[in-house]
């Protein structure tokens, strides 16, 4: 009996190896995704002796985009100021350039055109949203705030992380010390970071208080201003995630072959020339991957804004995940699922277009 069982197990081993993973993902990702989709098109009501779920179609989404939740999700619109026009012009140029590149480079198929149109349309719409809500008199909604955290946050983190990796890849004493120290913030729980930065940013009794007083800013509170509150959230997030980019880029820089670099430096090429022409093309695919990972994770931010500012002042620092969570806590399950689905849509389209438009060409260029 035991032998037969062993035999059977061995014959089924191909399936048994992968089955647990597939079942777990089905139970905890695919099934929730479907149930969430159902919740997003229905209204949840507590009644006598239980609850009741009613189908309402796309009403939850309409509420977010046009109705009573518009100020929360999209923000309050205002006339576009000049930085907004600048952003839009930049985006338009970028969009046209990428399309022109695509049409020129060759095989054009329907799927490519449709996919590009969706992603380009979404990027432009999001740019328009930020331009119209960031002006004077406007207010950012949770969607724009999340985009701000993702793009401003991740690009800052990438620049600093890469810079530190370049410094640390020099031949200097104490490299391993710096490496361990720079890695530490990644370990700290985001909730802990939130309180830590509340302590540090305390302008009346924190460690920097004498400096604020000297500038005459002692009575000011960063938590009461929308932009300073967002800044503190982004600083905390960057403090945690720069190490991740640092450690991967450092390994990439150390992993590349030194022959070419040595030859170029013997020929008298400057550091910047070497970096631009030799080092960068080699590490660019790794850089793109690390940025993609960060973008995916940054869309999920909640701990920092929730603990640091509680989403405030007002809704100024509220991310989409926090927005969805707050809706859940007020028992608006439909609204919560709708926000979550919007987040899923935006983050999937943007990650996919980053992957297709930036990473694939880079890889093709290298191979």
């Amino acid at each position, binding site marked *: 009996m035991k032998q037969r069982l062993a035999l059977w197990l061995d014959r089924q081993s191909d399936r048994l190896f992968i089955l647990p*993973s597939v079942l777990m993902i089905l139970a905890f990702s695919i099934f929730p995704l479907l149930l969430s989709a159902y919740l997003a098109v229905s209204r949840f009501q507590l009644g006598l002796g239980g609850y009741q779920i009613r189908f309402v179609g796309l009403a939850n989404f309409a509420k977010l985009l046009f109705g009573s939740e518009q100020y929360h999700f999209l923000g309050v619109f205002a006339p576009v100021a000049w930085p907004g026009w600048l952003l839009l012009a930049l985006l338009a140029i970028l969009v046209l350039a990428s399309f022109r590149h695509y049409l020129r480079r060759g095989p054009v198929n329907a799927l490519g055109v449709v996919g590009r149109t969706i992603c380009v349309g979404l990027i432009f719409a999001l740019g328009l949203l930020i331009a119209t809500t960031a002006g004077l008199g406007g207010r950012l909604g949770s969607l724009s705030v999340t985009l701000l955290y993702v793009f401003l946050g991740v690009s800052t983190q990438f620049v600093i992380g890469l810079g530190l990796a370049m410094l640390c890849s020099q031949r200097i004493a104490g490299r391993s010390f710096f490496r361990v120290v720079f890695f530490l913030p990644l370990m700290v729980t*985001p909730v802990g970071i939130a309180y830590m930065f509340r*302590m540090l940013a305390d302008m009346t009794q924190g*460690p920097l208080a004498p400096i604020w007083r000297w500038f005459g800013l002692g009575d000011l509170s960063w938590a009461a201003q929308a932009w300073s509150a967002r800044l503190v959230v982004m600083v905390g997030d960057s403090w945690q995630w720069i190490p991740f980019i640092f450690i991967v880029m450092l390994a990439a820089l150390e992993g590349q072959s030194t022959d070419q670099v040595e030859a170029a430096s013997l020929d008298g090429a400057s550091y910047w020339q070497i970096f631009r022409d030799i080092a960068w093309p080699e590490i660019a695919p790794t850089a793109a*991957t690390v940025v993609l990972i960060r973008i995916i994770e940054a869309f999920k931010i909640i701990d920092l804004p929730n603990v640091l500012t509680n989403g405030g002042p007002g809704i100024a620092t509220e991310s989409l995940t926090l927005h969805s969570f707050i809706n859940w806590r007020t028992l608006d399950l439909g609204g919560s699922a709708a926000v979550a689905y919007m987040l899923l849509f935006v983050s999937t389209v943007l*990650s996919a277009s980053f992957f297709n438009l930036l990473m694939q060409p880079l890889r093709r260029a290298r191979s």
Partner: protein
Amino acid sequence: MSAPQSVTARKSFFESRRFGELAPLSKVVVYGLLLVWTVVVLFPLYWVLITSFKLPIDVAYPPKYLPFIDYQPSLHAWRYIFVDLGNDTFRPYSNSLIVASISTLLALTVGSMAAYALSRIQYRPRLGSVVVFILILAAVVLAVAAGGVDWRLAVAVGLAIFLLALRTLGRRFKRHLGNGDILFWIISQRILPPVVAAIPIYVMFQKLGLLDTHVALIATYTTVNLPIVVWLMYDFFVAVPKDLEESAQLDGASRFRIFIGIVLPLAKPGLIATGLLVLILAWNEYLLALFLSTVRAQTIPLLVAAQNATRGPQWWYMSVLIIIMIAPVVALTIALQKYIAKGLLLGAVKG
């Protein structure tokens, strides 16, 4: 001869004299920048550490930077957290230890099995069967959520229909998916924001009566971290040479024995790096714990987040909590530091 020499001499002031060796001036700049960042990293941690030894009065303005000189350190906050609160601190702490370690072990086991299988065995699931399965699953969800059908009944009927469809229609589907598709499907689960899945998972555990238990948190964390394990371990297994396995196979060893006896020991560095990463993610997780636990299964990030009580945050207690929360992971990381860079790199480079 003399002209080129003077050129190199002038240049070397700013640039490398020999490759890799820095000129004195740039050395100063490099060290300066590195030290600045060291301060940026360490000062917040230092401030938390000294605040945990401060009396409430020492936290007020002007800030006190140096223990023993600016103020007299006191252990009152530590005593409060460990002695007065006692079980209220230890319970979340042991919850976190149990949940994080067990879910890490499970994710490593399940995930590396899948990663190994994907790197060695060719899977060819039929596209049609997958589509049928998803449709039936959606129908089951709809029947339970909207139709009010008992979920056990719906699952049983759905399963029966699926098996029936597999027997009858299965052979007609011609298009196959490959290993690459399965791998991409598993990894892409990471894009899914947890908040999308949080409410259904909450409802699911509520129906099962498992809310606020270790089981709920362990199962959820295992699945959430599974894609990372599969992704990173896949690269390791691809790199492990296959000769040993093939000769073991000829000797008649089963696939399980080969996996446990030969492959896993070879992939140990990868297992350590991946395990550490997953452990940290599970230890720090906040959103899902917020949904799934209240009192009994509360984890330590929730305990810290809940400190913002009516009297405003009491920084001295908070600092103690932050320190005991990050101390174990920091110690582990420093101990296993050389593995983690390798592990992260392999995943990131190959994407």
